[in-house]
């Protein structure tokens, strides 16, 4: 049952009405039941893995608290990671062994398992791992109630693709009675509307051009490839941000608060700034549980400790996305970039004093944006060779495109000609890109106070037409294409 499915659109309001009117003592159990049923709609295998990871986490949380021992912590980490490693990386490791053997003899044709990944396993495994580590370092108390712990793990709005919550933030909300609160419910609905709009009107529309061009990049020129890489950046962002907003909004309607996962990431002025704004819950998880211990352990090596911590963090982050060399390289490339960011912090600070602030800010933004766009090509491509070919063709194809534009005096017709072959109707592309500009500008102006909060205090005659406009856009402009699965669901 996905957020953008008809089942969810029917089941969620019905469940909300029942849940908010139920006696307080039964609400946590009702929410747990609802979450488990929702998980079961993805198949009983997903449910079994979820229960297994929950039981391991609960048992070790209690056991580690009763007698803090490093062996127990490592046993918990290994047991929790084992299913994820087995299901996600077995074929990748066999492939790597086969490729290595190919250098010496005929490659061995070993069996491939093609395990299908249970829904949300990468997310809830990390949620439970964080909990066990927190109990070990006494950052949180072990959960006493198995039902409450199961709800912390299985809470449906965050089950499939996060946000990656901390037990210390989520558990205190479980036993608080949830009642209908007009302001809260309408705020949640506005967030859900914004998420659905981003996913269905923008991300899914952009997926048409992205899928078409990445399937055969050789057929396109430099401008078309660069435009497509920008489309992919925003498809990825709006798809996942849309998902996260629906998660946060649904939780809010039900009376729970979840972490905001995005904070205008493409406005970042450095790579470290970018990672403070992108997939915030998971990035902070990696920094808390990978970077902090690694750099703390090695800190006699001073700056080298930070570099090692950063490289380890982004290598794990790349691997987390999946068993592919492109993801590993994506992690490493970002790890190297953020290390350079760290090492050049002082010279940049000095440089900043010498040039006008707006010029420095624009320069820093442009470099960060261009880097993220290039790295995202790696994230989207099927192989490292395909990434190389794409970027090479995009960069070398720019000069002929520029010559063509100069010959035609940058006429509108010549610009149209450069993107003529893109597999998307022009109006769809204009609509998607125009919407992105409007949303990003609204985000910029709403830095201090989000646009939805400003809308909430407007008179009725402004508010309701705006709601109808968004709802109408979702219904009539929502992409009708099949590629509607949330991108981060597959990780």
């Amino acid at each position, binding site marked *: 049952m996905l957020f953008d499915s008809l089942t969810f659109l029917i089941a969620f309001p019905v469940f909300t009405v029942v849940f908010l009117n139920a006696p307080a003592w039964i609400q946590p159990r009702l929410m747990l039941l609802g979450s488990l049923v929702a998980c079961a709609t993805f198949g009983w295998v997903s449910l079994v893995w979820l229960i297994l990871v929950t039981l391991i986490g609960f048992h070790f949380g209690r056991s580690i608290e009763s007698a803090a021992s490093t062996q127990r912590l490592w046993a918990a980490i290994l047991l929790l990671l084992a299913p994820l490693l087995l299901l996600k990386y077995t074929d990748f490791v066999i492939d790597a062994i086969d490729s290595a053997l190919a250098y010496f003899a005929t490659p061995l044709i070993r069996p491939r398992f093609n395990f299908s990944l249970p829904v949300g396993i990468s997310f809830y495994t990390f949620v439970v791992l964080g909990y066990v580590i927190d109990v070990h*370092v006494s950052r949180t108390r072990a959960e006493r109630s198995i039902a409450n712990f199961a709800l912390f793990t299985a809470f449906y709005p965050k089950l499939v693709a996060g946000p990656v919550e901390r037990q210390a933030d989520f558990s205190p909300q479980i036993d608080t009675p949830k009642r209908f609160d007009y302001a809260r419910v309408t705020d949640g609905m506005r967030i859900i509307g914004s998420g659905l709009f981003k996913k269905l009107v923008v991300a899914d529309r952009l997926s048409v051009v992205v899928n078409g061009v990445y399937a055969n990049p050789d057929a396109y020129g430099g401008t078309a490839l660069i435009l497509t890489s920008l489309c992919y950046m925003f498809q990825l962002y709006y798809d996942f941000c849309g998902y996260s907003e629906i998660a946060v909004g649904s939780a809010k309607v039900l009376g729970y608060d979840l972490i905001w996962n995005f904070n205008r990431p493409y406005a970042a002025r450095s790579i470290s700034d970018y990672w403070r704004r992108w997939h915030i819950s998971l990035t902070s998880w990696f920094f808390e549980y990978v970077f902090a211990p690694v*750099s703390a352990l090695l800190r006699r090596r001073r700056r080298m400790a930070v570099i090692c911590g950063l490289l380890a963090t982004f290598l794990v982050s790349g691997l987390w996305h999946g068993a592919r060399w492109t993801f590993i390289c994506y992690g490493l490339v970002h790890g190297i970039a953020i290390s350079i960011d760290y090492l050049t912090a002082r010279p940049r600070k000095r440089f900043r004093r010498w040039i006008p602030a707006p010029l420095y800010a624009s320069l820093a933004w442009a470099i960060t944006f261009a880097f993220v766009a290039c790295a995202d090509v790696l994230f989207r491509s099927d192989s490292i060779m395909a990434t190389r070919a794409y970027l090479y063709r995009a960069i070398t194809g720019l000069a002929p495109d520029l010559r063509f534009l100069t010959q035609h005096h940058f006429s509108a017709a010549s610009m149209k000609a450069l993107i003529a072959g893109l597999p998307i109707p022009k109006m769809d592309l204009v609509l998607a890109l125009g919407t992105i500009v409007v949303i990003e500008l609204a985000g910029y102006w709403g830095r201090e106070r989000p646009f939805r909060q400003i809308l909430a205090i407007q008179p009725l005659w402004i508010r309701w037409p705006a709601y109808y406009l968004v709802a109408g856009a979702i219904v009539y402009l929502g992409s009708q294409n099949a590629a509607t699965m949330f991108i981060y669901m597959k990780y």
Partner: protein
Amino acid sequence: MKSAAQILTELTPIFRDALDDKQLVLSPDMSARSIEGWDSFTHTQLILAIEEHYRIHFRLKEVMNFKNVGDMCSAILRLAP
């Protein structure tokens, strides 16, 4: 022997530099939750800068468990010569 207030004064420029906030005024109850930008990355940079400044070495568990500025001051008082 330094006082906690003295340590707090000495820590202020270190925090201002790491958090890039020239106006920051430290108090013992300030924590990562109350100071914007104090995340795990900045925390490590703070620890490195403090250890270098005082020529001390915190225990690993200490580093992972500092709850606020006051905890850091107490550890520095205990370790600093």
